[in-house]
């Protein structure tokens, strides 16, 4: 189970990781003393050899929330890492890195779970004994699809491109709603990321905790998420629109909602990363590309849903009305379209799509936590801006480009930078063509 937790951490690095990317010593962070303050805590310890000397150069991996840090003990055998998420962290000792003649005391759990808190220090002891190994070993964390940067090979390019398409499709699912909400109401919804998280966590509760069939769980999750969208508009956004609250004010309300929801997730689920599917992912190899079965399903479903949304917007009466409201609400209202009903529909559909994206993301990454959506939100904004704020098809195109860029960045830069590139593109787009690919000039002024 603990090894499983570690795998989740590593897998979540695949797309969402912000920390160092592999367990190799090359990227390991030399340990420095950590000072706890209001928003960070420390996990630290000292490792001594069986004869009492400090154990130097022992490699450890610490998984906290969705970040994974690789550490090496210093000359005094000390290690320490700063954490930003209160709650259990997993500390794994790389038993192959122990000084010769030493083994881990078999009574010590490895990986160990440390209950860290913000503003304080927590520790765990890895007791070493002299002598032969007692056979307690841990599988070295696999690097997953966030392989370390090295030479760019054709295989790696294809693999990353496949991951890029996968991320792009899921991003598209999530950001169509964001763009439609913006188009119909003019609101930048900063709580949209939490709708994605909600989807993932609900699926965890239904599929993992209650043991429902995965498809049934996904279906129920999407239904519940859509309902949250419906009631959100009915209870919060419509009354506020009627009060005549300006959009800036509404935007700050969405920020408040997003803070409240994030901590509500932590309150009920905790800060840990949870898995939707209990079974270990099965991978399929297609030529040089390795993808999990869940990923293939997720991509297939995403494509199908995106086509359905596109057809709905282009062909159905209500879809056309939606685009009309998105284009010009007053004109749409004047031509007899019930703008409020359309906005209600947009909120419902957006929340449902975001929930679906959350379920898929949880399956693809093999883990979801309270900030999964938060991290996706910036990519969604980048995608939506790139495509043109308020245009549904712009969001699709923007999402595919951003997804691809984020994953391909991994080929040449370490994982830490992949979001940075996406956001840099966003800034460049605003400099050159602020209305985005499909946007119109007059909307930006």
């Amino acid at each position, binding site marked *: 189970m603990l090894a499983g937790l570690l795998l989740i951490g590593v897998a979540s690095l695949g797309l969402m990781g912000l920390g160092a990317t592999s367990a190799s010593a090359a990227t390991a*962070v*030399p340990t420095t003393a950590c000072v706890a303050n209001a928003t960070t805590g420390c996990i630290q310890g000292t490792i001594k050899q069986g004869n009492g000397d400090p154990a130097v150069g022992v490699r450890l991996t610490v998984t906290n929330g969705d970040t994974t840090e690789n550490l090496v003990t210093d000359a005094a055998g000390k290690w320490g890492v700063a954490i930003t998420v209160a709650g259990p962290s997993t500390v794994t000792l790389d038993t192959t890195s122990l000084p010769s003649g030493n083994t881990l005391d078999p009574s010590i759990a490895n990986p160990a779970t440390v209950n860290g808190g913000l503003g304080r220090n927590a520790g765990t002891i890895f007791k070493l004994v002299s002598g032969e190994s007692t056979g307690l070993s841990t599988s070295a964390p696999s690097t997953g699809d966030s392989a370390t940067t090295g030479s760019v090979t054709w295989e790696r390019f294809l693999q990353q491109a496949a991951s890029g398409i996968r991320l792009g499709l899921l991003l598209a699912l999530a950001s169509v709603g964001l763009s439609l909400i913006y188009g119909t109401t003019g609101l930048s919804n900063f709580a949209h990321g939490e709708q994605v998280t909600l989807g993932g966590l609900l699926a965890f509760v239904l599929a993992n905790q209650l043991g429902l069939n995965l498809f049934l769980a996904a279906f129920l999750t999407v239904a519940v998420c859509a309902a949250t969208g419906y009631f959100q508009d009915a209870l919060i956004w419509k009354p506020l629109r009627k009060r005549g609250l300006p959009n800036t004010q509404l935007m700050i309300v969405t920020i408040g909602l997003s803070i409240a929801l994030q901590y509500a997730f932590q309150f009920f689920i905790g800060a840990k990363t949870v898995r939707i599917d209990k079974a270990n992912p099965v991978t399929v190899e297609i030529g040089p590309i390795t993808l999990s079965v869940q990923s293939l399903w997720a991509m297939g479903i995403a494509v199908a849903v995106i086509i359905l949304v596109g057809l709905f917007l282009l062909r159905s009466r209500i879809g056309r009305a939606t685009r009309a409201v998105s284009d010009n609400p007053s004109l749409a209202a004047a031509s007899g379209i019930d703008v409020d009903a359309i906005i209600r529909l947009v909120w419902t559909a957006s929340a449902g799509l975001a929930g679906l994206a959350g379920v898929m993301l949880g399956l693809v990454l093999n883990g979801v936590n309270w900030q999964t959506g938060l991290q996706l939100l910036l990519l969604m904004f980048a995608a939506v801006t790139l495509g043109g704020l308020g245009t549904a098809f712009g969001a699709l195109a923007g999402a595919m480009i951003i997804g691809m860029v984020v994953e391909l960045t991994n080929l040449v830069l370490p994982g830490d930078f992949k979001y940075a590139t996406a956001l840099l593109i966003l800034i460049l787009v605003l400099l050159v063509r602020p209305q985005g690919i499909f946007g119109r000039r007059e909307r930006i002024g």
Partner: protein
Amino acid sequence: MNEFLTTLTAIAASAFSPSTAALAIAAIGLNIHFGYTGLLNMGQAGFMLVGAYAFAISIVAGIPLFPAVLIALVAAAVFALILGVPTLKLRGDYLAIVTISAAEIVRMIGRSSLLTDITGGSNGLTGQSYRGPFTDLSFLGDGQTTLGPFTYDNTGSNGWWIRLVAWSIVGILCLFVFLLMRSPWGRVLRGIREDEDAIRSLGKNVYSYKMQALILGGTIGALGGIIYVLPASVQADSMGRSMTFFVWTALLLGGAATVFGPVLGSIIFFALRLFVQGVAGQFVPDSIMNGQQAEQFSWILIGVVLMLVVIFRPQGVLGNKKELSFNVN
């Protein structure tokens, strides 16, 4: 009852702690952006982080204290320039999206393992490595001083010296903002917030004024970042998006476009959190809500308070409703 007293003391201690002062300074900067000019800066934490890194790295590199502070302010000004050029001619949302993204970029680059030698990676830079020149300036000497229920080191890492300096800066900045906003320059800023086109028709260069406001507020934010890290450590993740949102909450609670709003808001922000945690810890049994959950509950409440304040009292505690129309274009 004794525990209640402890909670009250903790609240009072946090009210004048250096972190509260740092948050207040950052909120004063944001007040120039949002309260007076109407700029939606969603990346104030990015300015704080740029300031903190520039300051700490300069000191570690052997630069004296005041030049290091200057470098930090210049770094923040350059950061503001980079963000302002593409966005200040566009609608407000774009500045919001770009600033929040840029703040994240700074955080990710700061914690990147590639730059461990300079920024300390995700571990950050410890306070000892850059605090020296600051504590050397202290004229309070060694030892401890007790004032009422509060006992701190005179100089130490988190003692009276940093409190004295931090709150003096808060006071000076309040006076500065008060004088600035009465000046013709300040009137133009308020005018831009109320009606950009009207100001443009008076022959003012709105873009340039917005840029000046962005730079000024950003450098004040950087100053807040320096104060924030002086008693602690420079850590990229401690100045992430949540920090930006806290600054916003503090500003809106206290009252945007007022001189003392940001300061009062920061104090209320920290006090409210500790109060909720204290009450929850004392009256709610652990089986329903444990300590960690009490902390999370206090954050949920902060989010809800932010929503309610913006909806029902957008002018905050101190503000004037006529002053703050929230009509940002």
